[in-house]
């Protein structure tokens, strides 16, 4: 449809202004022309305008204004009734105005001072008339970032009475509008404004797209680090080489333009021959002489720059065909891949190391889930050599692990895993696994709990075959036990046999003295010696192993020991205990006693203190022992390292034989040895409760 006012957009505000003038004129004309020709359009206009206008106060004013204008026009018409041409003009204008109003592409809107819609010619799809008239403002239908601009434009219209134009985006319609606003004036002031809005989305979006692609191109051009080049096949000359060539190869640009082969000078001698041959093949391929060369296939080589630095590069060449299909030019790109290669190399090394660790160490690593469903995600291949099951068999059946645990250990292991889940504390569990062939393998299973991003719990752990270590340990434990029992036996013999004989001798001597008065002096002397001998024997026996430890247990033995200790060393022992009234397992008592003996000896020897604090307590599962002195302390690591701490090592050995733990802290607070001993042996022991 040829629309006479189609060009009344923002490009020509004045033209639009003229249209508005004509609106007034047409109103006059319509009022003045009772011609049947206009009847229909007038009714239609009225039907449109009046019901759609807002019920606000502005409408009567507007209508009154229109009425006033009409009467003025009427008067004017009477004044120039002879002028038929004027009437024709008006009629023509009416047609143009109508076409504007009825134009389905443009929106014609009347708004008040606040931007409220008073009138719209039609609405966009999905927006109802009643959503606009009297309820919404022009701002509501424009994206927020344009409100300020619209505000300025409307100010110009309402305050200065001048037309204004803007462009804005409407999110509701998803369209860009070019808008022109013109004032509708009362006698004194602007009471409303017409806004002509045209959808210009297509143009704006094209502009925006263009802007984006330009930006992208600019960034590409400025940031690319690769070398581009274009070679002419016939002349074998470089038509273009990007400036980055000079940086990468360390050669001046002039070189490559003068001699297209000069880049080979920068190639590492070991790679040069191959690259030279490739280059020859490349040109041969362009004339169809060599089929060996494949365009686009990357070849990597080293560049040895004049400054001695080495770079790895990757080059690719592409054919550029001329109009008749002949390859006339070669386009190429060279990328510096030194960093990539180094990273790859490091990654490969790390991977190899990791794999070596995971797969070559005599340790079974695993990752699994403890919460339901129980799954084994990974198990290292050592599983096969140790247990006779393949990795695949092991991961396929998550229940296999439980199944292969020695029945006596199973509940205890489940308890431990449960504890790991609940407390999150790393666990260290000793148990026996039964290999496929029935071999019993002593294992140490050390597991930690990890959480992934999804909050799931994973268990990562290693299973170490400690069968040999277990044997060594058993031997060590045996030696310790033998040593203790030897000491016990000798102590007893000294005390009982030798002691009793000396006792007998003592009494005999007394008898002699009673019967033979003359011998009294010598007998007294002899008795003195016997008494001393008895003391020595008693001390020796006690040092070897106090009989009290077997007779009465730990607590009385320690009390007695502390009394002796204080007497010998002048160091007071501040002893506190709790929950250890009952007798404990003999090996636990012995270990605690020996550890304490060694620790107190160290305190007397090195700590330079007058007091030592000993704490001994039990929670039913563990016996805890802590020895604390406020002495100057010592460097734990170096003392243990240089062999001077053999006493400490012995303590640790004894403690570990009972699956206990010993920690040694030495700092400004002094030295603190803490020992935790399980009251019941773990390995082979039956768990008190089943986890299932």
């Amino acid at each position, binding site marked *: 449809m040829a629309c006479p006012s189609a060009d009344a957009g923002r490009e020509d505000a004045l033209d639009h202004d003229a249209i508005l003038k004509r609106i007034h004129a047409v109103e006059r004309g319509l009022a003045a022309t009772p011609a049947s020709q206009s009847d229909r359009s007038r009714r239609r206009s009225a039907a449109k305008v009046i019901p759609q206008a807002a019920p606000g106060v502005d409408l009567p004013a507007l209508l009154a204004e229109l009425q006033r204008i009409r009467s003025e026009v009427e008067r004017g018409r009477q004044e120039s009734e002879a002028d038929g041409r004027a009437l024709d003009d008006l009629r023509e204008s009416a047609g143009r105005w109508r076409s504007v109003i009825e134009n389905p592409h443009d929106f014609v809107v009347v708004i008040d001072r606040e931007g409220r819609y008073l009138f719209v010619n039609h609405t966009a799809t999905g927006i109802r008339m009643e959503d606009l008239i009297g309820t919404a403002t022009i701002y509501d239908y424009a994206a927020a970032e344009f409100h300020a601009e619209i505000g300025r434009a409307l100010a110009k219209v309402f305050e200065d009475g001048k037309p204004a134009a803007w462009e804005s985006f409407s999110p509701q319609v998803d369209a860009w509008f070019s808008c022109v606003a013109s004032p509708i004036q009362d006698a004194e002031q602007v009471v409303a404004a017409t806004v002509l809005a045209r959808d210009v989305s297509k143009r704006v979006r094209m502009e925006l797209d263009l802007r984006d692609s330009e930006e992208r191109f600019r960034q590409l051009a400025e940031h690319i680090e690769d070398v581009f080049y274009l070679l002419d096949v016939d002349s074998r000359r470089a038509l273009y080489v990007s400036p980055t060539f000079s940086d990468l190869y360390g050669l001046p640009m002039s070189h490559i333009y003068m001699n297209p082969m000069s880049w080979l000078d920068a190639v590492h001698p070991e790679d040069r021959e191959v690259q030279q041959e490739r280059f020859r093949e490349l040109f041969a391929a362009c004339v169809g002489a060599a089929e060996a060369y494949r365009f686009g296939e990357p070849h990597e080589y080293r560049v040895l720059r004049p400054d001695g630095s080495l770079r790895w590069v990757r080059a690719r060449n592409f054919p550029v065909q001329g109009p008749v299909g002949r390859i006339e030019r070669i386009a190429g790109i060279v990328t510096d891949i030194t960093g990539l290669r180094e990273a790859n190399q490091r990654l490969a090394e790390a991977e190899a190391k990791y794999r070596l660790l995971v797969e070559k160490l005599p340790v079974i690593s695993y990752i699994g889930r403890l919460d339901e469903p129980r799954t084994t995600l990974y198990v290292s291949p050592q599983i096969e050599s140790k247990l006779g099951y393949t990795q695949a068999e092991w991961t396929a059946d998550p229940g296999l692990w439980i199944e292969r645990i020695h029945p006596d250990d199973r509940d205890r292991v489940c308890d431990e895993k449960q504890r790991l889940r609940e407390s999150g504390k790393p666990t260290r569990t000793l148990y026996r696994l039964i290999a496929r062939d029935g071999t019993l393998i002593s294992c140490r299973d050390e597991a930690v709990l990890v959480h992934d991003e999804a909050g799931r719990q994973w268990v990562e752990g290693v299973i170490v075959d400690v069968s040999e270590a277990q044997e060594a340990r058993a031997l060590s434990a045996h030696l310790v036990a033998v040593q203790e029992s030897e000491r016990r036996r000798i102590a007893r013999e000294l005390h009982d046999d030798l*002691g009793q004989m000396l006792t007998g001798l003592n009494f005999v001597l007394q008898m002699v003295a009673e019967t033979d008065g003359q011998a009294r002096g010598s007998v007294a002397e002899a008795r003195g010696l016997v008494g001393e001998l008895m003391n020595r024997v008693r001390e020796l026996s006690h040092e070897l192993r106090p009989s009290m430890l077997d007779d009465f247990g730990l607590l009385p033995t320690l009390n007695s020991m502390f009394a002796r200790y204080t007497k010998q060393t002048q160091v007071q022992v501040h002893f506190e205990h709790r929950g250890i009234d009952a007798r404990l397992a003999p090996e636990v008592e012995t270990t605690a006693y020996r550890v304490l003996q060694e620790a107190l000896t160290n305190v007397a020897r090195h700590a330079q203190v007058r007091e030592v604090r000993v704490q001994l307590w039990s929670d039913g599962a563990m016996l805890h022992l802590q020895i604390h002195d406020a002495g100057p302390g010592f460097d734990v690591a170096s003392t243990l390292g240089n062999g001077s701490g053999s006493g400490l090592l012995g303590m640790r050995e004894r403690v570990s034989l009972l699956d206990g733990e010993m920690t040694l802290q030495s700092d400004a607070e002094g030295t603190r040895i803490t020992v935790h001993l399980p009251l019941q042996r773990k390995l082979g022991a039956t768990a008190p409760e089943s986890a299932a």
Partner: protein
Amino acid sequence: VSIRILLVEDHTMVRQTLRRFLESQQDFQLVGETGDGIEVLDLVEKHRPHVVVLDLMLPGLHGVEVIRRLKQRCPRTQTLVLSMHLDHEYVARALTSGALGYVVKQASIDHLLTGVREVAAGRRYLSPPLSMEDVDLLISRGQDGSLDPYDTLTKREKEVLQLVAEGHTNAAVAARLGIGERTVETHRAHIMSKLGLNNHADLVRFALECNLLPRRPPAPDGSSGAKGSDGSPPGSGRAERGRSPHRDDPGPRGTGPV
């Protein structure tokens, strides 16, 4: 009236010598002798001695156990221990089990004879170098070791316990104390094993029992202070100690506004 004596000594030579001494006394009558702990009870029931002279180291039944059974079966028979052991622990054990006297074997025979007469008269007797005070002290001390588990923690561990129980994360505790997060972990692990705790809930319970944490939030009207002063909360069994690892922290922790 002579003192009827049963001699219990497993070493034959010593027993023979002792017998000669005992028999040489006018007022003593040796009614029997044995070297076996189990036999003692039967012999006592059979001979009804006034005094049993008893070595502690006996085959069959340990001397202390023999004393205990004697005391039950024949409370009127007194026991005098004759032993190589000088340790007061042995003396205390013998006396608390029911013996009335204790003579060390290296003492002179006169002490043994005096011991028999004293014990027969129902009096306690200890030969030199034993001291009645030391033994009494040992006996009266009893088995209460007075250890407070909380005191087994180091200063740092107490600080960590307090903050962890108050609900701070490891990271927050580390930041507060100016130490590494891993160090906090280690301290936590030490605390847990020293106190025999398995999880965080145990730890909080322990802190509550030690009055490290307020039992209930402080009342807004400030009346909680008055409540706290009239004793510890029911069931705590301990007085409010105002324990805080921070020494200069004033007042009990359980009641004041935190």
